[in-house]
């Protein structure tokens, strides 16, 4: 079981949840309107006067075999419109109940 954290431009909106669903992933936790900035390049998403755009963030716990598919789809979405900004990070889940 892996935790996938996805931070993405709010313009994607429902798209990411739909993407997860398409990969058979039902559960997720979402934070709307978060702010953030990439480490390398791209516009910051700070929701202020200078950088008005904002992000949403999703944390989802995925069965190991679904991770690759989800990441591939996310990568495809990101490459389609690079300016928007979408990043996903995966790490292990030690325990859950």
């Amino acid at each position, binding site marked *: 079981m892996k935790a996938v954290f996805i931070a993405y*431009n*709010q*313009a*994607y*909106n429902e*798209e990411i949840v739909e993407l997860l669903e398409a990969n058979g992933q039902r559960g997720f936790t979402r934070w709307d309107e978060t702010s953030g900035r990439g480490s390398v390049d791209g516009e910051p998403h700070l929701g*202020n*006067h*200078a*950088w*008005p*755009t904002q992000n949403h963030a999703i944390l989802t716990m995925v069965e190991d075999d679904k991770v690759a598919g989800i990441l591939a789809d996310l990568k495809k979405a990101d490459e*389609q*419109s*690079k*300016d*928007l900004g979408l990043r996903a990070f995966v790490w292990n889940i030690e325990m859950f109940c």
Partner: protein
Amino acid sequence: MSIYRKAVNNPVTTALIFIAFMIFGIFSLAKTSIAQFPEFDANVIMVMSSYPGANAADIETNLTKVLENALNGVEDLKELTSRSKENISLLTLEFEYGTDIDEATNNVRDKLDMVNSVLPDGATAPVIFKFSADDMPIMLLSAQANESLPGLEKILDDKLATPLARIPGVGTVNVIGAPTREIHVYCDPNKLQSYGLSVSTIAQIIAAENRNLPSGNIDIGSETYTLRVQKEFTDPSELLDVVVGATNGRAVYLRDVATVGDGSKEREQESYTNGVRAARITIQKQTGANTVNVIRKVKKELVKIQRNLPSDVNVSIIIDSSENIINTINTLKETIIITFLVVMLVVFIFLGSWKSTGIIVLSIPIALLASLVYLFATGNTLNIISMSALSIAIGMVVDDAIVVLENVSTHLARGEKPKEAAVHGTSEVGISVIASTLTMLCVFLPLTMINGMAGIMFKQLGWIVSIIMIVSTTAALTLVPMLCSIMLKPNDKHGKLHQKFFGPIDRFLEMISNGYARIIGWATTHRKAVIFTSLGIFVATVGLIAPGLKTEFFPRGDDGRLSVSIELPMGTAQDVTRDVAERIYEDTKAAIPELKIYNYSFGQADTDNTFANMQNNGTHVISININLGSVSTRDRSTAEIADQLRGILRRYPEIRKANVTEGGMGSMGGASSVKVEVYGYSFEDTDAVAKELQAQMLEDPTFSQVLLSRDEYTPEYQMDFDRTKLALNGLNSSTAGAAFSAAMSGTLSSYYREDGDEYDIRVRYAPEFRTSIEDMENIVVNNAFGRPVRMKELGNVVETLVPPTIERKDRERMITVTGVVSRGSALSEAVASAQKIIDATDIPSNVTPVIAGDYEDQQDMFSDLIVLIILIIILVYMVMASQFESFMSPFVIMFSVPFAAVGVLIGLAVTGTALGAMGMIGIIILLGIVVKNGIVLIDYTILCRERGMGVIEASVTAAKSRLRPILMTTLTTVLGMLPMAIGTGEGSEMWHSLGMTVCWGLSISTLVTLILIPSVYCVFATRSERRKQKKS
């Protein structure tokens, strides 16, 4: 959920809400009437009281002064003027515009009740009446006839006046100038004397003979019959057989001492249209009725009426006040359509896409139609002010939509889905769109709160533009994102043709943007040079142009109407007047080919014709109404023709006073006038000063006509009876006076009835026996002993002078010198020359001349508007300060305001226009528009700095990126105003200066501020940077 997302997610509801707005708007458009100006209540109340027998000076002291003192304290009273003439005192109370006239009337009544007991015995109780522009005739008709002329009055009365008066909205219909039938009995005084008869006995006998008497009933057998004595005359000739006396046992018939004629009244108003005798019909509307609607109905009815009239009676329209209104409104409609097309074209050229253009210009009809709902709901009309407001707004409503659409496109280009791009693109600029609308509301909402004349004129403008701005902002935040989400595609492919057309435009705009960025790069490093050059421009323009600035009140309109009032010397006989009037007509016809309809009338008005009586009338007064047709049908302006007519009238030495007024009856927009009110108690002193001023002003080229308000002493004859002689004959002043008047003006003995109408039977001396003073002295009256006595035995006829009417204003005697401002001169120039003339004239210390009239109104309005401008500047600053959360940035932006003034000054100087009320409104509008560019520029500069750029780099980047939207919004506004500024249709003089001031002010201020504002910003920003560094 935000309103943007709601709108985008529910496209059907969003669309339907705006469609509903449009449907209401179209409904309102169909139901809203049109008028020239916004409606306003009358602000004048007149109080009239008579004191029979008192002369002007007595009336002034005993009646006028008492009333004036009582009424002076009435609330909201602006001006109190009075006229005291023989027998009558007439006070005119002018209230501040916008005063509730009913309440004012009650206040006046209360005050009058308080003084009623102090008024002299014998003075009648003061009567109050209200007078408003609604009482002016809205239509003048003329009815010409050949064979039917003698019966014309009856025909017109039955077949024209009565049906017209039945039309809803029509107030009164008066027929003037048609011959009025009268049966006259002309007595020969010599024969009367020889038979021992008098005019009054004959009148009594005729009255006694001309009777029908019901005499009760009689029962005969089983029937009841009514009894009547039926001896009314059935034909005027029967009068001749009336027995009026007996002499030597033989009956004396009326035919023995008099002749009987069936003709028209001796003294009556005569009216001629295009040289042919015709009746003049004046139509007044009911208070509050809409002129255009009433006239439309009247015209419809006239078609029917014409069918029922005898074939030789021809009814034509002399003046139709709706014509000018309709033409003016049509011109404005055209202006609005042209403006719409121009704005659409500008948007299309900049965006290069029909879809985007469509989305943006859609907000124009929506906002415009929504504002019509307001007009309809508040019962207002489509008039010059409300229509100009629509036209002004067109260029501004698209701004918000442009900003939103531009940002949505940026988001789309980034690869967002249309729906999301629409929502986020809108929400990012939402606040700044609302802020810029707020600055506009700061300008237009205060307009709705001003009082006075300016309030009446510009309240609607304020409301309409405010409503349009609010609706268009709402549309920009809901409808525009919704349409964007549906219609815009991320990467719209364009065809080759598109590339061919828009490629160069794009490259050109790119070039300008780059050039501009380079200029800003230079300007921000040479701040001092830029700031001092700008300061130099400002000082130079203000210094050079402002002192020579001409001002006016309202521009001179051209509605193709002239009304002329000519006074010949008092007492000129009607025949002489007729001759003069005919000669003037012939001269005018020969000299002025533009004449469409020329109607003139003269003579004493009938006592039962109220409207004619309110105007100056008499045998020596000629009043002329001229219709020159619409502007488009002639080359010369009404003003030019008026001047020519004044020249023609000057050639007649017999004319004592000629007043040529442009613009028909009571309409605004004729030539301006300067009134010099000369205050002082002494008639001689004020007369001398006034005449001197009149002479000087006539020589001045800025005046085309100068008239005095005070008449001269006018001659009259009085029959002065000697009381002792009267007493010796057993007579008194009343009996002798009655005989005198019976002989001269006749006695109305009874009525001759025919077909249900009554005609006067008037008995008097035959005309040949009342032509000279001797004739008057030879009038016979039978004394108490039955012996005939001549007037000369009882007293003599003396010639005296009647003092003129005493005019007062604010409880002081005065005389007004009214100068009409000549063509090509502005009101301010005329005022300046009047002032110069006053200064140069030697004026006694007890006389004070004051300049009033249009100038006073103009000064009032200008001071109102200047206060408003200051208030607006403060409000605009406050809104901007809160938007930027800073005191410095809005201060920088405010630098564009003085350059708007520079632009206006240059514009006025270049076009030679005078600054009037409309121009002032233009300046007020500018306050809201010129700061918009600054807001866009500074906002983006601040954004760039927040993104980490240095001050100069930020200024250059902002300049480069924001030039395009600034150019676009400025061009839509300037080009949107252009049709108003240069239009040539009927009535366009009215809004020329409005469009012109906005165009010039905005263009110049944009050019200057685009360079100046970044420089000033850099000065302040670097200073605050340094301060920060020092602190840290």
